[in-house]
Structures are given as C-alpha cells and as structure tokens.
C-alpha cells in the first residue's frame, strides 16, 4: 500500500480543518487531538492511504463517536475506548480490520479514526461517508448507496458493550443506536457497519482527510502571519464568501433529541444593511439572506470566527460574535436525486428544492 505517515503538525491542522468541515456540528476536535498528541509521545504513528490502494476484499472499520458534545467535554475522549469498539467488531465478526476510516470528517469524528488506527496498527483511509458533519446515520454516502446498515458496535468505557446485529434500514440503525447511546449517558464510541475495500472505493467520499489538513494548515499559517484566515481557506478550497457580520440573535430549542434553531446575523463591511439567518439541526442547514434562501444542505455552510478563522459551532455560537460565513461545495454523491432524498433540504423538513449556491 502507498502510505503517507501523518506528522504531528498534520494532525494539528486536521483538528482545525475538521472543525471547519463540521458545519456547526460534530463537536470540537480538541479532545481527540489531545489523545493523538499523547499517542505521538508514546511513539505511535499513523499512516494515511488512498481508497484506491485498498484491496477489494480489504476489511475496513468505520469509526464514529455518537452523543452530546456537552457530555463529551466532561467524560473526555479516551482513544482506547474507540479502539475497543473496533476490536469488539473484530471479535463479533471474527475478522481483523485491514484499515480504518471515519464516518464523518466534520468535527471530533474527523480525528477519532486516527486514534483507532494508532491502536490497531493499521492505516487510516483518506475517505469518509459524509464529507462534512450530519446529525443522523442515514445521512451518509454508504446509506445513499444502500449498503448494509448493520452490524454496529456501541461501547462505553465502563465495560458496556452492545451490538446492533440487524436492522432493515439506516433510519432504524439511527433510531436503535441513538436509544443505546442515550442510556449510556449520551456519549459512546461506535464502530459503524464495516465496509469492504470495494465498497469504500465505490461509495466513500475521497480525499477528505487531506482536504481537512489543507484547510487547517491554511488557517494556522494565516494566524501565524496575521493574514486573513478566511481568505486563506478560500485560496485552498473552491468556496464562496456568503456573508460577514455579527451574531444578533440565537434561538435554540430541542425537538426530537436534536438542537434546532436559527441564528441571525447583521451585515458588516460590504454586507452592511443586510441580514443573514441560518437555520440549524446541530449542523447549519439553510442560510437565507434578507429572507431569500441563499445556501442550503448539502452545500457546506461554514460559520467562522472572522479573526481566528476557526469554526464556530451551533451549540456555542453567541450573541455579538463577529463571524464570516462561507460555503464549500458538497460531495457529488449527495447531488443525485437519491442523495438529495437523504440530505437535501426536504430531509430536514424544509419545503425547498435544492439549489446550489455554486450554480449562480
């Protein structure tokens, strides 16, 4: 396999870039980053491989943390528990993993696959199944591809280990898995249904770890040289500046176990006398300027701190923050009719036809 060793600096950049790709959700990758720093100190190394370098029959673990970021910041992240979710899957399916990949590149889950790879001594695949962060299990490329939605292992540090052996659909995987996670205290380490090399090649969203590292590196470099970090992101990604402004209001409510709400921004600079509102379900879903829809899922809507260029999450965004909103292009797999059925505006309850902000 053609593998590239990830440096500590790569991982620092990955944490910053994954938070940007978290599009408001996914949780800050800081705790996963701290674990990775420890593993580096212990001499552990992680290699990154391309999906195309996987054998068709390679056996690939798909790693994700599930739960409330708020619980995560009390219980912290322990790399061994994520490794246990993968090993438990190996025991359950009586097969050793050849590689590890992430379910979602956005947020803390963008870094967690590295923790497992370092423990298992296998490489990380430069692919994920969301290309960003999304709140639900059926909002993935492998769900769009109708790949098998089971088995899934769910592990808690206290020796609680569950397998969701069989479910008929990805929506059932989400519903049953969520119940277990809530009972565990609203945080758990999971190994999602394993994939073969052939499945990863066909349905994975590729190059996303590399992309996150590039975004993070651009932001960190701009911070160091006191350049505009947002411009730095737009220089490495074909994104689009949507808005610059200040947070005027944040209304949040919990419905069906998700954080939903709307954030309103008032324009600054060339956006003066204009307002933007972004509706969210954990992640930023639909952005409207002066009442007209401007950008919507699956386009990535990223709210960034105007000064640091680092991402701002929907749980922590606060009144008065100065932010810049950009859009990044979505993975192709979500642009098909089937893809939009899973992650388009209607999948989130908005009576809107998807119109890409990049088509105008």
């Amino acid at each position, binding site marked *: 396999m053609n593998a590239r060793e990830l440096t500590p600096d790569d991982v620092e950049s990955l944490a910053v870039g994954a938070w940007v790709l978290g599009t408001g959700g996914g949780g800050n990758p800081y705790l996963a980053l701290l674990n990775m720093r420890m593993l580096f100190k212990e001499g552990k190394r992680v290699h990154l491989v391309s999906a195309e370098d996987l054998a068709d029959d390679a056996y690939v673990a798909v790693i994700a943390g599930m739960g409330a970021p*708020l619980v995560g910041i009390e219980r912290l992240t322990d790399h061994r528990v994520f490794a246990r979710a993968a090993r438990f899957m190996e025991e359950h399916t009586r097969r050793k993993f050849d590689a590890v990949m992430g379910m979602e590149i956005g947020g803390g889950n963008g870094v967690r696959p590295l923790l497992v790879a370092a423990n298992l001594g296998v490489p990380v695949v430069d692919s994920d199944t969301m290309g960003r962060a999304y709140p639900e299990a059926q909002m993935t490329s492998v769900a769009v591809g109708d790949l098998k939605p089971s088995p899934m292992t769910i592990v808690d540090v206290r020796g609680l280990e569950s397998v969701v052996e069989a479910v008929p659909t990805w929506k059932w995987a989400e519903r049953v898995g969520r119940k277990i996670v809530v009972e565990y205290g609203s945080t758990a380490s999971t190994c999602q249904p394993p994939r073969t090399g052939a499945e990863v090649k066909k349905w994975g969203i590729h190059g996303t770890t590399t992309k996150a590292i590039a975004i993070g590196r651009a932001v960190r470099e701009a911070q160091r040289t006191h350049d505009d970090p947002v411009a730095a992101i737009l220089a490495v990604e074909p994104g689009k500046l949507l808005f610059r402004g200040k947070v005027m209001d944040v209304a949040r409510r919990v419905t069906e176990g998700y954080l939903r709400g709307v954030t309103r921004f008032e324009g600054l600079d060339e956006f003066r006398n204009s307002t933007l509102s972004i509706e969210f379900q*954990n992640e930023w879903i639909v952005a409207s300027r002066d009442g007209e829809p401007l950008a919507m899922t699956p386009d990535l809507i990223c709210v960034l701190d105007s000064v640091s260029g680092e991402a701002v999450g929907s749980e922590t965004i606060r009144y*008065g923050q100065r932010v810049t909103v950009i859009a990044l292009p979505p993975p192709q797999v979500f642009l098909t009719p089937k893809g939009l059925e899973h992650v388009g505006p209607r999948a989130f309850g908005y009576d809107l036809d998807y119109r890409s902000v990049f088509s105008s």
Partner: protein
Amino acid sequence: MRRIGIDVGGTNTDAVLIEDGKVVRAVKAPTSEDVTTGILESLKSLGSTGVLQGKKVDGVMIGTTHFINAVVQRRHLTRVGALRLGMPASASLPPFCDWPEDLAELVCGGVWMVEGGHEYDGRLFMPLDEAAITKAAQEMKAAGLKSVAISAIFSPLDPTHERRAAELVTQVIPEANITCSSDLGRIGLLERENAGLLNAALADLARDTIAAFEKAIRDSGIAAPLFITQNDGTVAEASQARRLPVYSFASGATNSMRGAAYLSGLSDAMVIDVGGTTTDVGQLKLGFPREANSVVKVGGVRTLFRMPDLLSIGLGGGSHVVLESEGKGPLKVGPLSVGYRLLKEGIAFGGKQLTTTDIAIAAGVLKLGDKSKVTHLDAATCRKVFDEAAKMAEEAIDRMKTEAGDVPLIAVGGGAFLIPDKLPGVSKVIHVEHGDCANAVGAAIAQVSGECDQIFKDLTRADALSAAQGIANDRAVAAGADRASLATIESEDMPLAYLPGNSVRVRVRVVGDVAGS
C-alpha cells in the same frame, strides 16, 4: 458608605477614597517590587491628606495582578496533588495533560485518578471509591504535598463526590489546602480542573499576599475589612479570595471599565482605557464588562474563567510616533512605546523619542514637560497624528461593538487625551474627572456576585430559569451580598442536543452590594 479602592498597576499604585458616591481624594504612589510597600505608601498618602481623620472606612478594595503574574512568570507556585474522580473514563487525558511542560513540572506533585463522578442527569457515573481516595491521600502525605486539587465528572451538577473526597483527604492530611473544581464553576472537565490546579498552586501565595495586604492596611492605621476585586467586577471577602485566588486574575481591566461606568453614570456604553502602551476597548452592559465566552489561556493553561471581553491595541500616551517626513513610509503610531520611561525619553522631557504625548504638548492639549522642545511640530502634523490615533480607536471600537447604532464612549486612562470628542459610530465621547484613576475607582465600588451554571431536566423554561436564579442568589449572599440589593445581570439558557427530557443548560449571574456597607 466610605470605601478605599486601590489599583496596583505596572507603574503606579493608585488609591481613591469614595464617600457617599463621590470621589473625595485620589492619590498615586510608585508601585513597589514587593507590591505591599506601594499599597502602604498610597494609603499613608491618602491618610496624610486628612480626609480619613476620625472616619470609619467600610472596606478597602484591592485590585491586583499578583496571582496572574505568579502563573505567567512561574514564581511562588505551590506543588499540587491532583485527584480526579471519574475513572474509568478520561484516563487517557490525566490532569496536567494539556499544560505547558515547564509549568507542569513546577506544579505537578503527582496525579491520582479513582472511580467516581456523575452523569449529566445526576445518575452516578461510578460509585465513589473511598478506599482508593484514602490511599491516594496517604501517598500525597508521604510525598509531602499540602495542596490538593479535586475534580469530578459533572461536579458542577452534583458536587457531593468532590466534597466527600475533600473530607477523606483532610482526615489524612489535616492541614491540606484543598480546591474542589465545583467551586470554580463551568461544564468542561479539563478547563475546570485546570482552574482548580492553578488555584491550588496559588494556595501559599494567596495566604501570604492577603496577610501582607491586611498588614499594610493595619499599619496604615485604617480599621477596615479587606476585599479583593475579581475578574467580573465584583469583590470577594479576604477569606474567599484566599481560598479562590484564581477569581482575581483579570481584575485590573474590569476595574477600569466599572470605574468608567461609575464616573460617567452610564451603565451601557463602550469604554476605551488608554494607558501608556496599550489601549483596551470593552463594552459595558448594565454596568459590567461583557465577558469573553470562549476558552481563556492563562500562562498557557486553558481555562473558562469569567474574564471581560477586551480588545487591546498598541496605542497609548507613550506610543512611538514615526512621521511621514522621516521618510520611513506612512505615518505610524505605536505599537512600540516608551512606557514608564516617558518622562525621560519623550522629546518634551529632553529625550529623543517622539511620542503621542509630545504631540499633545505641541498641540497645547497637555500642559506637561517643556513645550519649547516641540515647537518644530506644526499644527498640521499634530492633526495628522491625532487623526491616526482616532482612526485606530475607531476601528477597535467598531470591532467590539455588538449593535449597529451609535453608542456612547467613555474615555479613561492616562492617555485618554488621544480620544477626540467626535468619532464615527459613537454618539458622544465622555471624558470624566478622575478618569486616570478609573481602575482604583472601579475597585472601590465593586459588588458581590453569585452564579449558577447547570443543566435542568423536565422543567418549563421559566421554572428552570427561576431555579437557577435562586441558586445564584444564595451563592451571592453566601459570598457576602445584601439580598435586598441583588439584581440579575446575565441569564442564558441553552437546550442540549441529544439529551432527552427537555434538558436545558441555564447560566444566571446576579450581583449585589456588599452587605453592611
């Protein structure tokens, strides 16, 4: 009400006497190496004016950077035993794991992690392993540790495990100085634990410093209780400040904003504090500085302290001025500064460095130094420098504003002459008497606060808010506030993603006047 406020600054120690809402006297003494001599001098100087003759002083409020400087400069720190209750969770990220190595080396006296802690909803995460705590305490005793920081998972929601562990440690080390993380607030184990570790590391310094402050007050002949001002513009009684010195970290900037509010009579305004080297811009809401909501690093350690949200720029009364005519590019003001050497290095004082103060002297704005040394600076040149300073201030103010309309601006600090009477985005600029002692004034008028930050389940929003308010009120009263004067200055609620049962995190902060004042 008669109070003395003291601000221990980098150059001067200012003292003001406030009586029935008025500044009666303000004095300055040079800040001393040992800090307390400067305080004693300023108090003596205040006393020598005769204003204290035969009068009862209700309190001496001191704002100090002592504790934050100890952390930043790695001095006078106590070795700490870290006890975390949360196993088997969190094991890969032990206490001190994200500290700068040099600081951890100085402070870390050992790490003990045992089973315990709670879930977000109050269920036990794990039963508390009391035998393991006693064993840890014995090992700490053997290692000679006398300062201990205890943290537990979700202790802001349920502090019982931390409290029980403190009892058990005290049984083994009766003289131990113990910090429980739940006394330091917020959700976020690592940041809260860091605050606890820093606090425990300051145990000896806090004891000695507060004792020295008390002695300075006694020696000055003033019979009044000592209060220490805190990051959020309120005060703690000496005993509380001795127990929780980390809460006094950022009080200087806060005091200047509170002082500005007091001197101007405004409670909602922008404040610009122009010092010798830097200018701080902040926003007053209901008489208090708006707080930073994000992670604050102190000496390289991540914390979630209540700190004012400030923007600092390199503009002050000692800022270097590079004129266009010098041929080094466009006009430049700051960020370099002569600082406290202004009276030696400024041109009007016989020095060689052109500063903003020289410009003000040339323009006739300030009557200082030797005006004949700056006659070569014509009115147009001075105008350009003032315009540049105003532009820098305007930009900083615009960046800190949270509403689009024009807002009033209070200009304080020794360099406030740089702020013109009219600025774009500002409805009016207010210069106040005693503005150069705003910090000491802010210390003199500090209040007492109480805060509640926790998750409520299965309550209506209104009930959750009122429950939080009750807890915050009780905490303020416990900290010395007069219950009748309590007012809520912050109230924030946040429903929590994924958590069942309509969980909502509520943060309420109340303030009140010091009881008996």
